[in-house]
C-alpha cells in the first residue's frame, strides 16, 4: 500500500511539475481567479498578465516537483 502511494507521489508529482513548467500562467490563474480582479493586470479582454517573476517562480517550483517525483520514483527501485 505504501509503495502504491509512493508510486502515485512520484507520478503525480512529475505530472504537476510538468504542468507548472509548461503552463505557469495557468497555475497562477488557478490561484488568482476569484481572488484578483476578473480582468486584472494585462490587456483588457484578454488573459491576466502574469509577471515574469511569478512565471519563473512557478516554473522553478515545477522543476523542484519533478526532482522530488524522481526521488520518490528512485526509492521504489
Amino acid at each position: 500500500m505504501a509503495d502504491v502511494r509512493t508510486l502515485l507521489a512520484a507520478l503525480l508529482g512529475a505530472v504537476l511539475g510538468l504542468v507548472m513548467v509548461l503552463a505557469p500562467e495557468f497555475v497562477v490563474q488557478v490561484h488568482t481567479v476569484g481572488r484578483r480582479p476578473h480582468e486584472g493586470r494585462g490587456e483588457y479582454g484578454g488573459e491576466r498578465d502574469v509577471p515574469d517573476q511569478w512565471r519563473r517562480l512557478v516554473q522553478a517550483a515545477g522543476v523542484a516537483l519533478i526532482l522530488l517525483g524522481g526521488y520518490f520514483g528512485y526509492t521504489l527501485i
Partner: protein
Amino acid sequence: MAVVGSILFAFYAIAAVVAMGAFGVPLALVLVGSVLFVGVQYKIGKWMALRSVGAEDLPEEQYPEIHRQVEDISAEMGIDKPRLMIAQMGVPNAFAVGRKGAGTVVVSEELLRTLNAAELESVLAHELAHISNRDVVMMVLGQGVASIVAIVAQWVVLLTGDNDIADFFLALVVGQITQMLVMLFVFAISRYREYVADGDAADAIGGGEPLASALEKISRGNERADSAVDDQVNALCIFGEGRGLASLLSTHPPVEKRIERLRS
C-alpha cells in the same frame, strides 16, 4: 452553463459529504465554514484588487461624462451606480469588483486615452454587466469551491496514509491537481460569462460595434507591444494564444471570437 455549474456544485457536495463522513464535521459547520471561507475571500479580494493597482476615486468634476454614462447604463440595467475609480495600470484596462449595490468599476488612465467616448461607454457597460450578472461573486464562489474541494482531498490523502514524507508530498500534489481540475470548470463558466456580459453591454448601449471596436483597438495595440517583449518569456509556455488546449486554460474567450459575435 447549467451542466458546468451542476458539476461544480457536485464537487462541493462530494467534499462536504466527505468532510461530514470522514471527519465527523456536522452539516451546519460545513455550511457556515464554507460561507465564511468564501466571504473572507470576497472581502480580502476586493480590498487587494483596489490596493494592487493603487485605484483612486474618479473625480466627477474632472470626468462628468463618464459618471453620466455609468449612471445611464446602471439605470438601464437596473442596478445602483457603482463607485468609479481610476488607476495607472500601464495598459488600457478596466475591471469590476464587488456585487450589485456595492460594486466598484476601475478604469485605467491608459484606457481613457486609447478609446473614444462610444468605445469607453461600451467597456463600462461590459463591466457593469459583470456586476449586474453577479459574475464577480460567481468567480469568488468558484474559487472557494475549488479551494474547499482541494483542502478536503488533501486531508483525505493525509489521514489515510502513514504520515511519511511521501504521503505529505502526495497530499500536497493531490490538493493542487484537484484545485486545477475544479478550476477548469470555473474557467469555462468565466468564458461563458464574458459572452453574456458582451451581449448585455450591447443591449444596454444599443449595439455591439463600439465594444468590438474597443476590443480590436486594444488587442491590436497589445500585439505590437507583446511581440517585442514576450517571445523569450513565452518560449516554454503553451498558454497565450487562446486556441486548442490553451483555450481550455483561459478565463476569457479569444478576442476575435468576441468581436465576431458582437458584430454578428
